[in-house]
């Protein structure tokens, strides 16, 4: 979807009345001050340190992403980066990434991807640790949504595994939530079996999905596969995000996963970020925005 197609969005007041805004933006301008709807932004897979021809300037495309987000008229409550901030977990890559991400106007949440914990998670935690999440996973409430942020890249030998300790945390955490509370889950690797042949799955993800089924509306946001794929299972909506670095082939359309070369003038159209708002009815409205 092109940027010009993203003008339409939804606003609402504290009383929950929603307006669909026209492409002119006039109503948006009038209501923005009055409503200031809660929203957040997801970015993913920046791979700082990557230099191959598929995108020789990943720092530039991340910078463009940040500039676009900073220019949003309604600033998001926060920006979540769903992992693979770096390409090879190098100290210099984390330094560069942290410097760039530090220019975001909104608060930042960062999850690790497997590229951020090569050999050790030390560099990741040194740069993006949360004091309330010594193990890496955590939950919080904001804007009427209960958020659960997961880590599925810490286990050696099995990519996309949560582990029992984390599953126990989720079980206890969700037990305290009402059925009607909108739930949003963050992770790096898809929580469901999107394409196991390429490792695009979380082996024990079904245990967490079972815990999520009792809720009215659940949204699971992840990265890892560098492309937008939406999928629904009952009340659970899955949405993988575009990268800010480079695209990958659609599942099964190539011999292997990996960076996909597109014409230079098309690159920005397959990179981007997404805005997420609470929609009427308790679910979320997910809007993917290309960089060009």
């Amino acid at each position: 979807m092109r940027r010009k197609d993203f003008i339409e969005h939804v606003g609402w007041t504290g009383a929950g009345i929603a307006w669909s805004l026209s492409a002119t933006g006039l109503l948006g301008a009038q209501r923005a001050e009055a409503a200031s709807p809660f929203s957040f932004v997801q970015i993913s897979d920046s791979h700082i340190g990557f230099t191959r021809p598929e995108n020789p300037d990943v720092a530039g495309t991340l910078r463009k992403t940040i500039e676009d987000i900073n220019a949003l008229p309604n600033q998001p409550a926060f920006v979540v980066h769903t992992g693979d901030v770096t390409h090879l977990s190098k100290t210099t890559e984390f330094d560069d990434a942290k410097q760039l991400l530090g220019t975001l106007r909104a608060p930042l949440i960062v999850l690790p991807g497997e590229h951020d914990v090569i050999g050790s998670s030390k560099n990741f935690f040194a740069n993006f640790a949360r004091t309330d999440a010594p193990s890496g996973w955590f939950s919080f409430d904001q804007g009427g949504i209960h958020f659960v942020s997961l880590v599925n890249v810490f286990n050696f030998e099995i990519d996309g595994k949560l582990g029992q300790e984390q599953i126990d945390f989720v079980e206890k955490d969700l037990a305290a939530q009402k059925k009607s509370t909108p739930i949003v889950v963050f992770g790096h690797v898809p929580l469901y079996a999107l394409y196991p042949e390429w490792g695009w799955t979380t082996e024990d993800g079904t245990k967490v999905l079972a815990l999520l089924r009792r809720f009215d509306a659940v949204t699971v946001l992840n990265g890892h596969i560098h492309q937008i794929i939406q999928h629904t299972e009952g009340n659970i909506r899955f949405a993988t995000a575009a990268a800010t670095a480079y695209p990958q082939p659609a599942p099964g359309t190539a011999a292997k996963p990996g960076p996909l070369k597109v014409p230079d003038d098309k690159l920005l159209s397959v990179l981007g970020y997404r805005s997420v708002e609470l929609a009427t009815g308790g679910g979320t409205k997910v809007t993917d925005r290309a960089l060009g």
Partner: protein
Amino acid sequence: MNKLIPSLALVALTFALHGAGARAATPPALLPAALTIHIKDFKFNPTPAKIHVGDRVTFVNDDDEPHTVTAADKSYDSEGLDTSNTWQHVYSKPGTYKYFCELHPYMKAVVVVTPAPAQ
């Protein structure tokens, strides 16, 4: 004051290195190896690889994607190998060594190390 000079030189060197961005550094010289294992199309080849105690093995990443050579028991780890990067390891004890790629854990392979042949 003179003590500042080495520090400034270090800062300048650090800046110069950092300023070079993530461009490929000069690869370390390779020592003679008994075997080269290529990483291509998300596979280690050959596997199982058969060598003798004391043999050095060179691993080469021929893929577009980075990979690692990580022992299943974590006794050794190449960390991230980008395209064309090499890494060497000497197997000093006999045994069967399972290893995998930490970034793509379904990539699994084996090195079988047997006692050195009689001279």
